[in-house]
């Protein structure tokens, strides 16, 4: 449970809470050692796997690390014809070299919803 949700609609988070949240995010990045080259590699590999089954608009594919709901997530956004598929992966932050083992694929037929 992140501080931001807890505080939502009440007060602004205190500087101490802001520091803690910012640290969590920056440490998640530091620990994963995710650099742009690695993200590009992951992007290419996910794309090649998904492309076997679905027609993906390659230019629109985005793979980013995001901080959501108190956890680090790798978000891959790869639009298909009138569909959007999102692959969510919770990276095992303490075993940076492990492979992707678990993930959820959401297929959204509407065009407006963003991850």
């Amino acid at each position, binding site marked *: 449970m992140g501080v931001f949700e807890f505080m939502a609609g009440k007060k602004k988070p*205190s*500087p*101490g809470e802001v*520091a*803690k949240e*910012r640290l*969590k995010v920056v*440490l998640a990045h*530091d*620990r994963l050692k995710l650099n742009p080259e690695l993200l590009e590699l992951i992007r290419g590999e996910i794309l090649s796997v998904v492309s076997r089954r679905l027609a993906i608009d390659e230019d629109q594919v985005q793979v980013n690390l995001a901080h959501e709901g108190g956890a680090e997530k790798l978000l891959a956004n790869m639009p298909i014809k009138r569909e959007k598929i999102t692959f969510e992966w919770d990276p095992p932050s303490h075993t940076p070299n492990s492979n992707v083992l678990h993930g959820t694929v959401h297929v959204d037929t509407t065009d407006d919803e963003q991850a």
Partner: protein
Amino acid sequence: MDSRVITITSGKGGVGKTTTTANLGTALAMQGKKVVVIDGDIGLRNLDAVLGLENHIVYDLVDVVEGQCRLRQALIKDKRQEELYLLPAAQTRDKNAVNSVQMEQLCQQLRQEFDFVLIDSPAGIEQGFRNSIVGADEIIIVANPEMASVRDADRIIGLVEAAGKPEPRLILNRLRAEMVKRGDMMAVTDVLEVLSIDLLGVVPEDEAIIIATNKGEPAVYDKRTRAGRAFTHAAQRILGEEVPLDDLVESTSLLERLRRLMGFGPALGEKPVRSQSS
């Protein structure tokens, strides 16, 4: 002899490694242990001054490693503690004057004679840091409750793990209880949660440290100082004693103190209970 080699490190500079080393070393000696403190910061020697021994130096760590003198000749006896010695850093050399193998051998040699070998690591993650941890059984990480220090501490924790050392323990230094109370500074529990590390001690920000350093007398000599007491307690915890954390928040309300005594409410350094004022 069951001797322990403990490295005090931090990643970031200026968080209090040298102060911590000097105080823990002195406190352990005051508890009757035979202690040597090593200044691992070659080129930027400081531990000698914090201990008030800056005018006693003849030989240094590099002289020992290069065989210019015997180990005994370089060890400086503390002014007050019979069982406390300093192995100073060289001031005119750089960090690459010593390598990891030499440091490990030096630690082995010192183990023969001392209960505790405390190594004051230089800031950074380069050779000087690697040298300082190579011979260590235990690692103490010093951090301040602020972004840059905690971030660097996390890097160090990773490097310590990668080096195959046991899990380090944390000394959270320069905590300002009144700022934590206001929510303006991360609380002890916040830092512990973010770093997933065991706590060895919490040292409050205290002017007594500057005064102690000015005089060259570690703060642990003055039991009235809060920082001195905190370092003494940390040393006792190193010796396996269970010492509760000092109450750093002196202005705490009576009600909160009562609740804490009775086992309710936040313990020291935890996030304050926010008052439900309208």
